[in-house]
């Protein structure tokens, strides 16, 4: 990918731009799920993961802890 071009973002129409935001959220969610699981498998604490994501240990655990218990 070339350097991110803010001009292209500005030139998109709002329908496209807002749809892209939704798609980016879903992509981010996927990457997060994947890598939180990897970090846990590698022995990271919830605190370590929360720090990496810039959120609290509690919020990351509330969001992903259940998934781990299901596995």
């Amino acid at each position: 990918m070339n350097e991110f071009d803010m001009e292209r973002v500005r030139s998109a129409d709002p329908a496209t731009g807002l749809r892209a935001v939704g798609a980016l959220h879903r992509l981010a969610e996927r990457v997060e799920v994947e890598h939180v699981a990897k970090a846990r498998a590698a022995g990271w604490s919830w605190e370590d993961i929360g720090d990496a994501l810039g959120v609290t240990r509690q919020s990351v655990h509330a969001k992903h802890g259940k998934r781990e218990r299901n596995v």
Partner: protein
Amino acid sequence: MFERFAGEARAVVEDALTEAERRGAVRIASDHLLLALLRNEEIAAAAGTDAAAVQMAADQLDRDALAAIGVSVSEVQLPPSTVKGKRATRMTSGAKEVLKGTLGYAAAEKSPTIAPRHMLLALLDRKEPDPAAVLLAALPVDRGELRERLARAA
């Protein structure tokens, strides 16, 4: 309003909740209703498309939107049933309009039941930028012709 939905139409609303959650949305929107509705074989046959084709069209719209802002992804897949505990229990105002329209079509026909067909008619009334209207526009569906066919099926 929802209490008056019975049987198949109620199942569509419930399936729309699943669609919303699969897409990581916190609200049920009109496009989720459309996706759920096209899981109904009769409706899919009438529209000449199916849920898989609509899903592909939705994914393509995502890829195109990302490309337009300079993010290239070869494949955008839905996140696998994302976050537990975050349930999409509420509807967007557009989705509520669709339910209202669905009731309107059933009432106009004096139909004792609210059928999936009434919901497709209501979805066909949506105008862009409504997400269902955007999705319908991306499909090889002749909306005018489909509307006539649905009206004749009354």
